């Protein structure tokens, strides 16, 4: 190879490494998003643990009690009846079954029949015990009340918009796993290329890895930082307190993953810069 060609090839090497660093930053950024989604949106364990942490079950049961009490006050039922009835319901288990059904691709329609049977038996007994002359309840009125109560119950179990994305979530899990594996592999390949083609001057390896991790840090931090400082998540307008707390906890957790990734990228970027500076100094001193 002539001297000129050799020099030209050597001149192009930094540009090629910068391009590799750029791609690695992009892959690391995408990897952080994919892993955050995989362990939050696409995980029923995450949903269930967020529900437990945000006291969703307690709050949704209280909302169900309030709604049923309100219905009772329009239907001849006193507060004692509705409170006792709610205590006998296991809303927690029904919510868990509903969430698990989503993530396993089963039917997500709440089965109201067991609730209706239980509620109807309870109001029949209540009507019998509180019977007033000339005020016998009509079958139609009791059925209408049971159906309304069952609707309130189903509304408490269901999570709005979740049904819309359920199918999407179920279908996305496997492709997401593959995407994560491919992105991790691509990052590994770039690291190997940068590492082994700079064995003579190791500081360059650290330089380009520092570029990649620092770039990934800047990309990854933008979204969680915007969400945090704008406070947009906490201003979401949801009428139900239980759903609001679940929503806020859910997205806080999701962005927490991104904060962790951003922090890890920053630390790695700084460490590689420090390693570069150390090697560089030693090299300059040797010369």
């Amino acid at each position, binding site marked *: 190879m002539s001297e000129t060609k050799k020099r030209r090839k*050597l001149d192009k090497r930094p540009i090629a490494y910068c391009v590799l660093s750029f791609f690695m930053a992009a892959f690391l950024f995408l990897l952080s998003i994919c892993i955050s989604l995989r362990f939050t949106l696409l995980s029923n364990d995450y949903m269930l643990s967020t529900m437990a942490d945000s006291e969703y079950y307690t709050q949704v049961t209280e909302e169900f009690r309030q709604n049923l009490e309100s219905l*009772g006050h329009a239907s*001849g039922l006193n507060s004692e009846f509705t409170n006792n009835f709610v205590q006998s319901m296991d809303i927690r288990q029904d919510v868990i079954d509903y969430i698990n059904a989503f993530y396993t691709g089963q039917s997500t329609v709440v089965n109201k029949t067991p609730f209706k049977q239980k509620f109807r038996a309870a109001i029949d007994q209540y009507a019998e015990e*509180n019977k007033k002359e000339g005020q016998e309840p*009509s079958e139609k009125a009791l059925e209408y009340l049971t159906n309304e109560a069952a609707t309130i119950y189903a509304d408490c179990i269901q999570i709005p918009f979740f049904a819309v994305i359920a199918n999407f979530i179920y279908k996305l899990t496997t492709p997401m796993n593959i995407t994560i594996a491919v992105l991790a592999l691509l990052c590994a390949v770039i690291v190997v290329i940068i590492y082994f083609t700079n064995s003579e001057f190791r500081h360059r390896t650290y*330089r380009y890895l520092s*570029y990649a991790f620092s770039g990934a840090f800047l*990309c990854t931090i933008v979204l969680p930082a915007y969400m945090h400082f704008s406070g947009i998540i906490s*201003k979401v307008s949801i009428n139900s307190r239980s759903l609001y707390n679940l929503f806020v906890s859910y997205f806080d957790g999701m962005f927490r993953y991104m904060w962790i990734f951003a922090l890890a990228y920053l630390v790695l970027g700084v460490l590689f810069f420090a390693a570069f500076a150390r090697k560089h100094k030693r090299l300059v001193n040797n010369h």
Partner: protein
Amino acid sequence: MPEHHHHHRHHSSHRSLNGKNFVILPVVFSVLILGICAAVIGPTILKFYDMADLFISDVKLDYSDNYRNIYVPTSEGLEESSETSETSSEPKKPLSSKTVPITSIEYPRYSDQFGELIIEDCGIKVPLFFGDGNLQLNNGVGIYTGSFIPGYGRPILVAGHNVTYFNGLKYAKEGQIVLIRTSYGNYRYEITGVEVHDKDDTSAYDLGAEEETLTMYTCYPFDMVGLTPYRCFVYAKFLSGPALDKHN
């Protein structure tokens, strides 16, 4: 010579740390990556971003079960109320020509208790809320926020539960007096009729009317276990009370 030249090149490149590249290049990378992402998924995200306005409020919502009570009883106008009450069967004119600048009152926010509703003949004396959600109806009766507050000169629609606060409406009869007390004045209305309508019957009331009327409603029938689509509507006409001056 080439050996020497090669050494020289590396030597010169090692002299400076060139630290600014460690800032500039990551910034350039991130701008490019985020720019590409924005170009690829931006149009889709923008559709949802526009929709997000519907779900984001200006302030964080208050989910507490407590409500604000802004009601401070005033006796102004009560004397003339009792006078008229005794002669309620006679044709009536608004007895109070007084106006209250709307800017001088504390306009109720959703869920505030801002007054009380009294129908002595029916044994009703209950807190009056602005809003008719569960919280309000479990603590009193509530004005539908799509209607108006007393003194505004437009229809008022009040809801209550038939087991609790509006159970007394079963005794409502034409000619009975309804008193609504607020911090900015006392308002009197006279019941003109009681009717039962389906809950979806929009002819049961007219919120677009240009006169002040009071419509109270609750579930029907009373004192029976069960739910029906029927509602008991009690209609009342305005008798007296200070008008709210909307221009001041």
